[in-house]
């Protein structure tokens, strides 16, 4: 039975360069009412000669081009977005309503403090809420994204340890970590040492204890980790680090499993970042921008990026007098519009609502796990939190790998899950449904996964050659990576113009070759 269908209403879209014709324009400017300047003279010769073949199109062509392209897209507003370790969650419309409030949307960072009290109050309140949620003592909202938060956190660690006399040399990173963790450690001048996970998918506490010495500045841990398993010995792990004067950094990417239930500050974390664009429902992916707030324990407070918000005489002020600060990590005060959305989300839910969201996120992941576990090999038996990770072990016996299954999922109208991550799981399929998904959507997704498992048994070729129903067939990722074409080149005129009448509808040629079992 066909429960989900996809159809692209658009035509095959040319590049703007290809539909351009000289002299067209999509705007009208009023007549010049100031003396004409010679740009070359005004800019001291720093002008660029005419850009060759810069596209020139009319307004309607431009609108149609991007509108048609947008219909090819997949978005959280169209259906489940099961990318794991990324929390691609629905963005409630209340966030947008609040962020578009005139005084917030048009606030300017150079406005004087006296005219920015509302915006400053919002930031102060968000800092306070995030501190409560994480169980930490203070928060900076400056970092613009998760990895930026990691870098800020690691610089804070370096600053604190330096003030104690020795910044130390190494940062320990579990083998299940996000790639940004070791990258951050290296960027901030630390050596990286990998710590293995055990058969439960958890950090090996004994291996950690063995690796621990006075050269280690910190551990960067994700909890729940990237296999969706809660590090239940996190308090022991933290004690091992603290005993030797090191700190514990937590990557907050998976905070969606903890909000309202467990607080990192209570289980020994010293520094962490929060991805407001993951856990707190601000736009993610191409929509962004992100925000990577960093929460810290008191001892790190003097080192936070400045300026800091300070309350004095019933007014908010920016405190620039921060002699021990690591300095600014971003211009102005962070991605303010994103901060407004995050606070709107927190306040719209309230404490109970946030806790419910967390429980639903975990419930949904475990529901999917139960439905598809008979067909896909679960990577670790430990209970799943907000995401579940499978391996392609059953399917790879038929020559089908996780990437092929993901491509086939597109034919079923879903965005693929996370492919081949974490690296410690052989052929990983990582699925994170998030809390907002209704049971019907989860069932539809599980049905698609089960159908694909059957197809692999009956006719693996259909999966190996997927997708079949998309605008373009499977792209050649290998050649694209080995020999990338980075600039458009104008083709010869003869190759551009189709002959009159040389037009065929696309659909009949692409009638889906579905086996009977899934019709």
């Amino acid at each position, binding site marked *: 039975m066909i429960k989900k269908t996809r159809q692209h209403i658009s035509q095959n879209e040319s590049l703007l360069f290809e539909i351009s014709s000289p002299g067209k324009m999509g705007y009208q400017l009023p007549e010049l009412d100031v003396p004409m300047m010679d740009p070359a003279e005004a800019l001291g010769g720093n002008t660029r000669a005419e850009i060759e073949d810069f596209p020139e199109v009319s307004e309607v062509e431009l609108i149609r081009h991007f509108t048609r392209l947008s219909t090819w897209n997949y978005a959280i507003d169209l259906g489940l977005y099961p990318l794991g370790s990324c929390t691609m969650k629905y963005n409630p419309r209340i966030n947008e309503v609040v962020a578009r409030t005139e005084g917030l949307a048009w606030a300017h960072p150079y406005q004087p403090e006296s005219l920015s009290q509302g915006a400053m109050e919002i930031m102060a309140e968000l800092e306070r809420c995030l501190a409560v949620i994480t169980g930490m003592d203070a928060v900076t909202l400056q970092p613009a994204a998760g990895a930026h938060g990691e870098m800020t956190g690691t610089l804070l660690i370096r600053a604190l340890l330096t003030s104690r006399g020795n910044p130390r040399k190494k940062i320990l990173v579990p083998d299940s970590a996000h790639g940004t963790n070791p990258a951050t450690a290296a960027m901030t001048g630390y050596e990286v040492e990998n710590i293995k996970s055990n058969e439960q998918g958890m950090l090996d506490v004994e291996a950690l204890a063995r690796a621990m010495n006075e050269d280690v500045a910190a551990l960067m841990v994700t909890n729940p980790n990237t296999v969706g398993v809660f590090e239940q010995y996190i308090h022991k792990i933290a004690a091992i680090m603290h005993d030797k004067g090191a700190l514990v950094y937590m990557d907050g990417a998976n905070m969606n499993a903890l909000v309202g239930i467990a607080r990192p500050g209570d289980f020994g974390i010293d520094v962490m970042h929060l991805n407001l664009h993951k856990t707190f429902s601000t736009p993610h992916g191409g929509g962004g921008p992100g925000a990577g707030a960093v929460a810290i324990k008191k001892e790190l407070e003097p080192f936070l990026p400045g300026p800091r918000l300070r309350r004095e005489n019933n007014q908010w002020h920016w405190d620039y007098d921060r002699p021990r600060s690591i300095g600014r990590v971003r211009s102005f005060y962070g991605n303010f519009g994103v901060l407004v959305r995050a606070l709107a989300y927190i306040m719209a839910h309230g404490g109970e609502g946030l806790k419910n969201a967390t429980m639903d996120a975990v419930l949904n992941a475990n529901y999917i796990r139960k439905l598809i576990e008979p067909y896909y090999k679960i990577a670790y038996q430990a209970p799943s939190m907000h995401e579940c990770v499978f391996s392609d072990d059953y399917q790879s016996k038929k020559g089908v790998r996780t990437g092929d299954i993901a491509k086939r999922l597109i034919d079923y109208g879903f965005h693929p899950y996370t492919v081949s991550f974490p*690296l410690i799981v052989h052929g990983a399929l990582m699925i994170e449904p998030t809390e907002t998904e209704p049971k019907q959507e989860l069932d539809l997704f599980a049905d698609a996964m089960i159908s694909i498992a059957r197809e692999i048994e009956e006719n693996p070729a259909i999966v190996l050659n997927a997708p079949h129903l998309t605008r373009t067939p499977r792209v050649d990722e290998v050649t694209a*990576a*080995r020999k990338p074409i980075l600039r458009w080149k104008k083709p010869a005129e003869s190759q551009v113009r189709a002959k009159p009448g040389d037009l065929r509808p696309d659909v009949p040629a692409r009638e889906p070759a579905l086996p009977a079992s899934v019709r």
Partner: protein
Amino acid sequence: MSTYPENFRYTKEHEWVRVDGDTGTVGITWHAQNELGDIVYVDLPKVGAHVAERGSLGSVESVKAVSDIYSPVSGEIVEINDELTTAPEKLNHDPHGEAWLVKIKLAAPDEIKSLLSAADYQSYIGAE
């Protein structure tokens, strides 16, 4: 499948080393390239650099992931396989031969004694 030459020594991180006199030629194993999938980029150290045992030798990037390469031995890099920068796909075709990565002047030739034999490595990857 491929065979694992008897005159190589192997690591659990899936590198191999072949010793000729005081020089060790290092590469990644067939199993490693098979797990990585299509390799699209190889990052190698500079000639003259010194590398520690289990220190980083650079990285290989496939469509799936970027993986560090760890040196099975310590010493000085005396030659790198430049061809891999323009033809990384060779690592998928002939990882034990033409697609060697670097040659290292051995600082401590005894280090290879702690590495795996071909038989041990094969039983290791069989059990993994």
